[in-house]
């Protein structure tokens, strides 16, 4: 069977599995469609949360970025896991105790204001749209490779599939479907990693293998990698090129953003108990960590294999480089998608791959007779191409495709549900048309989701960055807008309506403006980006990916300062905060004593 046919079979089988489970569990409980996780063990709930959370950015893009960034890729690893600590410690148990269903609902009640609710919905829509945009590019890449079409065609097909799956199907919210998706994607991620780890080091555990010795040599993989990448003019793999403040800020923005992401937070609204909220964040992170600790191993091994393929002989020797005529199959098929591009600049019929932007290496390269880098490999294809580069069997390659689709679909579906709930439930029903019929509410939600897919598709054609980078912008926006006011809403009794609204608007506008100015997001048609995206133009040397941290600090400062100059929240709100802080339901006797607002 050809690879393409095999891919159809494997992807088809996994889809049949999800749909089958959806039907099976739907027949057993129609009532609690939205309330995922009730009566489900914390372990299953943790897997479902992990599937919801791990997106195309985690599955497809991240290891590829790490492969090319080396140490600098650590920002994604620490950033997207450390946020769960904040979530479990600072938000989840309290939001569970509060017991409403959406983030804007919490903000509306805690800050006793419809305006605050509208502002929260606007923040949420900005965050979710940016996030979905990142996903769509990932979906497009998967489909373009396995249907062997241009990436734009793949994107259109992907948009159609997401629309049918998420908007018409309404499969989200069924915990066991997501448990199945988690199993498919983690299996698809670790199997090729184990194979490649055995090939290169003989150690089957990827987490240990990338610190082990390469079979038959005395050097460890990372040392060898440092050696060969520097011999081609690239940065050392184990040390970064980003400035320290930038690494610090991006990591912080991703962590805080994780804790402020609406589609992650809502999962903790629905667990049965406060202590389950603490625990299920732990289980979710455990299941996420399996992928996240494998990813850096995949990244380093992919980089090693890629360079070995392109540069099989000695660097600088006439016959040291791969002849284009003898290029392997994966090279040919990826060329069709336009995501691998070869340009024979020095006309020698061989592929030279090196860092031609490194001035220190330019002289050396000229000596070798190289006239510029000839190979462009899209970073987002590395995870998908990795098993092909390593020459693994076809079924493994097909499995990776199924895993990538599972990751992208589960997250896209979760986000689209959040967007449609925000528009139909919070905005239309909650504010503008309170007496809307249920049918119309549902219809409005679907229109909103379809609209989101269109915008995401438009951004996917001309993305402002790699999948994981675009997704990082969404986290920056979440960190700067929602996280501070949720946190202050729990840990301060003094922050009031005026402070929260001013804080959210400041954080959102500042961060969004900065990203738009340097990278261009939704306003590309109007000429964005306007600024040069280089380090010496940046504020404090912080890149657009990390700027959410500054937005977050502004949000905190403005919220506290404005609150201090306006009247404190009414007494009932201060009592509400007291209630949220304690797991057990309190009787009124507990609260009667008048505390000074803090």
């Amino acid at each position: 069977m050809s690879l393409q046919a095999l891919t159809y079979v494997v992807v088809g089988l996994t889809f049949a599995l999800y749909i089958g489970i959806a039907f099976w569990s739907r027949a057993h409980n129609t009532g609690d469609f939205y309330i995922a996780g009730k009566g489900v063990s914390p372990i299953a709930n943790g897997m479902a949360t992990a599937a919801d959370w791990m997106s195309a950015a985690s599955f497809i893009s991240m290891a590829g970025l790490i492969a090319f960034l080396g140490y600098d890729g650590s920002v994604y690893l620490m950033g997207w896991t450390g946020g769960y600590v904040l979530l479990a410690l600072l938000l989840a148990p309290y939001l569970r105790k509060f017991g409403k269903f959406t983030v804007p609902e919490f903000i509306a009640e805690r800050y006793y204001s419809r305006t605050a609710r509208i502002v929260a919905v606007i923040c949420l829509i900005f965050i979710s749209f940016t996030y979905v945009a990142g996903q769509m590019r990932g979906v497009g890449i998967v489909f373009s490779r396995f249907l062997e079409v241009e990436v734009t065609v793949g994107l259109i097909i992907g948009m159609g599939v997401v629309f049918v799956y998420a908007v018409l199907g309404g499969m989200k919210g069924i915990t066991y479907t997501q448990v199945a998706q988690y199993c498919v994607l983690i299996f698809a991620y670790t199997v090729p990693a184990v194979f490649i780890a055995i090939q290169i080091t003989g150690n089957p555990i990827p987490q240990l293998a990338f610190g082990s010795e390469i079979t038959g040599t005395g050097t460890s993989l990372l040392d060898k990698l440092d050696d060969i990448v520097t011999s081609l003019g690239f940065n050392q793999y184990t040390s970064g090129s980003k400035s320290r403040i930038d690494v610090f800020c991006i990591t912080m923005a991703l962590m805080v953003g994780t804790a402020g992401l609406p589609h992650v937070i809502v999962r903790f609204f629905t667990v049965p108990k406060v202590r389950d909220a603490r625990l299920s964040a732990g289980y979710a992170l455990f299941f996420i960590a399996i992928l996240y600790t494998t990813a850096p191993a995949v990244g380093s091994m992919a980089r090693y294999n890629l360079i070995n393929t392109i540069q099989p002989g000695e660097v600088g020797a006439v016959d040291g480089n791969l002849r284009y005529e003898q290029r392997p199959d994966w090279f040919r098929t990826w060329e069709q998608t336009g995501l691998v591009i070869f340009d024979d600049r020095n006309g020698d019929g061989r592929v030279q791959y090196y860092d031609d932007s490194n001035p220190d290496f330019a002289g050396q390269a000229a000596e070798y007779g190289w006239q510029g880098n000839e190979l462009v490999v899209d970073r987002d294809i590395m995870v998908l191409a990795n098993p092909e580069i390593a020459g693994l069997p076809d079924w493994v390659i097909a499995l990776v495709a199924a895993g990538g689709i599972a990751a992208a679909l589960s997250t896209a579906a979760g986000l689209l549900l959040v967007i449609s709930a925000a528009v139909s439930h919070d905005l239309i029903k909650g504010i503008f048309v309170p007496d809307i019929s249920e049918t119309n509410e549902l219809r409005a939600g679907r229109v909103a989701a379809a609209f989101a897919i269109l915008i995401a598709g438009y951004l996917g054609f001309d993305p402002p960055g790699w999948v994981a980078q675009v997704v990082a912008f969404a986290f920056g926006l979440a960190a700067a807008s929602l996280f501070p006011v949720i946190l202050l809403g729990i840990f301060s009794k003094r922050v009031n309506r005026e402070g929260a609204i001013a804080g959210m608007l400041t954080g959102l506008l500042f961060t969004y403006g900065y990203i738009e100015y340097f990278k261009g997001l939704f306003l590309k048609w109007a000429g964005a980006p306007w600024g040069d995206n280089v380090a010496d133009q940046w504020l404090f040397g912080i890149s657009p990916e990390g700027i959410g941290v500054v937005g977050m600090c502004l949000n905190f400062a403005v919220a506290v300062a404005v609150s201090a100059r306006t009247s404190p929240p009414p007494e009932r709100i201060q009592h509400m905060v007291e209630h949220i802080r304690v797991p057990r339901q309190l009787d009124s006797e507990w609260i009667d004593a008048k505390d000074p607002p803090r």
Partner: protein
Amino acid sequence: MHRDNRLAYWRANLRLLAICLCIWFVCSYAFGILLVEPLNTIRVGGFQLGFWFAQQGSIYLFVALIFFYAWRMNHIDKEHDVHED
């Protein structure tokens, strides 16, 4: 008494939070970013220690930290008699 107990519970919670967040900061930002170069001179197997913390160690510690917090917090809930059911 109720009010004092409630405030004592909240103080115990904040103390635990402060300890956990310190560990969280040290194992990621300190070991993985700020001190990565000095730590990289130490080698554990084929890894440089700072690089290992940034790409592996911090993640393991995060998982352990959440379970530790959940366990301690359940204990504090019971101690102050504010636990559920």
